[in-house]
C-alpha cells in the first residue's frame, strides 16, 4: 500500500479518544486510544508533545529544531513521515 504523506501546512490534533500518557512503570510515554497502545521513543515523544491542535507541522518542526539545535530541513522528512503514520493509525487527525 503506498501512502501519501500529509502536507506540512496541516494542523494535526489528537483523534477522538486518543491521549498521550507518561507510563511511570516503564518510564516512557505511550499513546492510548481505541485499541491503540503505542510505546513512543524519544523522538516520538518529542513530536507528540508538540501536538496542541493549534500548530501546523511546519510550526512543530521549527520548535523541535530550536529545542534540539538542529537544522529544520534535517528533521522535516522524519516529522512528516511520523505524523503521517499516526494519521494512518487514527492517532492524529488533520
Amino acid at each position, binding site marked *: 500500500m503506498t501512502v501519501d504523506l500529509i502536507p506540512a501546512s496541516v494542523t494535526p490534533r489528537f483523534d*477522538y*479518544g486518543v491521549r498521550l500518557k507518561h507510563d511511570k512503570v*516503564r518510564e516512557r510515554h505511550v499513546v492510548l486510544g481505541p*485499541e491503540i*497502545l503505542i510505546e513512543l521513543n524519544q523522538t516520538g515523544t518529542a513530536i507528540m508533545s508538540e501536538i496542541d491542535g493549534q500548530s501546523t507541522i511546519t510550526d512543530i518542526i521549527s520548535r523541535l529544531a530550536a529545542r534540539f539545535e538542529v537544522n529544520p530541513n534535517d528533521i522535516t522528512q522524519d516529522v512528516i513521515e511520523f505524523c503521517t503514520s499516526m*494519521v494512518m493509525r*487514527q492517532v492524529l487527525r488533520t
Partner: protein
Amino acid sequence: MSQVTIPAPQVLLAEVTHRCPLQCPYCSNPTELIKKDTEISTTDWGRVFAEAADLGVLQVSISGGEPAARRDLTELIRAARDADLYVNLITSGIGLTQGRLDDLVEAGCDHIQLSLQDVDSDGAKLISNMDKSLERKLDFARWVRERSVPLTVNAVMHRLNLDRLPEIIELALELGARRLEVANVQYHGWAALNKQVLMPTQEQSSRTNQIVAEARESLNGRLLIDYVPVDHYAEYPKSCMNGWGRVALIVAPDGSVLPCHNATTLKHLSFPNVRDQSLTAIWYESSAFNAYRGDSWMPEICRSCDRKEIDFGGCRCQALAILGDASAADPVCSRAHPHSLVIATDESPQAGEVATSEQITYRPNS
C-alpha cells in the same frame, strides 16, 4: 530451567458480570457462569483498578456478560479513570438508556465497543435470542456517535452470517464507526457446543479473507479493520492473549484472576483471587500465571521452533480439550501435528441456509 523475565501487564480485562440480556451461543464466558451473589463489590473493583495501574496496566476493558447489568457501572468507570487507566467499554448496547450513557461518558468512558450479531434482524434475533436486538443496537450506536465517543463495531462471524460480511462493513461505516473488528468465533466453551451450526465452510473462510483484504484497501483511512480469521483453517496457531501471563490479565466477576478466558477449563491449576491477594503477587508469583511462561513447559517441537516467540505454542485450553494434554502444541499447528486434528464437523445447515433456534444451545442470561 531458564530464568524468565516477567514483563509488567499492559491490559486488564475486567469481566464485571456474567449476566447478560442476550444469549449468544458463542459467548466467551465459561459454560459455568458465575452467579450474581458471588460478584465482587464496587470497592473491590476500585482496588483492582488501582493495583492494576500500579502494576503497569495502561488500558482496561470493562466487559461481561453485559457490564450494564451492574447498577454500579458508572462508579466502576469512574474508579478506573481515577486510577488513570484508559477505559474501554465492551457492550451489547442492550440495557443502556441515553441517560445512563450520559453518566458513563461523564464518568470518563474513553471508547465504546459495540457487539453486532448480524445486519439482518432475524439473523440477529436467532443468535441473541432477543427480539429487535439489532434495532436497539442501532439506536445505541447513534447515541454513542452523538456524544462523540469513539465507536468500534465488533462483529462476531460464523457460518450463518459470514455471507453478509459486505453489508456488515457497510453498516459499520453508516454507524460512524472508525474501527471494525471482524472476529470469527473461537470454538471454545459455548461455541464448542454449537460448532455444528456455527463453523464456517472452508470456502466461506477463504472468501472472507479476500473480502477483508479488499475492504482494508478501499476503506483505508476511513475504517480500520481488525480481523481474526477462523483458526481451524490456519496453518499455525494464533498466540492466545499474546502469550500466557505476558501482556494481559482477566479478572472474573467473582474476583478470580485468569491468564485467558478459558483458563478455568484447566482443572489442574488453581486460580488466585483478588479477595485474598494483591494483583502484583498474583501476576508475578502465582503458580497459575507462571505455569506456561517461558519455554521450559513446552514440548521439544515448540521449544526448538522459530515461531515460539510469535504464538507461544498456542492455546493451552485447546491443547487440553482436543489432545488431553495442556502442555501439548496447539492442535491447530501443522508443524506439530501434520495430520489435521481439528477438521470441521459435518456442515449442517449449509452456508446461507437458515438454522432454527432448536439447533442452537443458547447460553442462559445468568
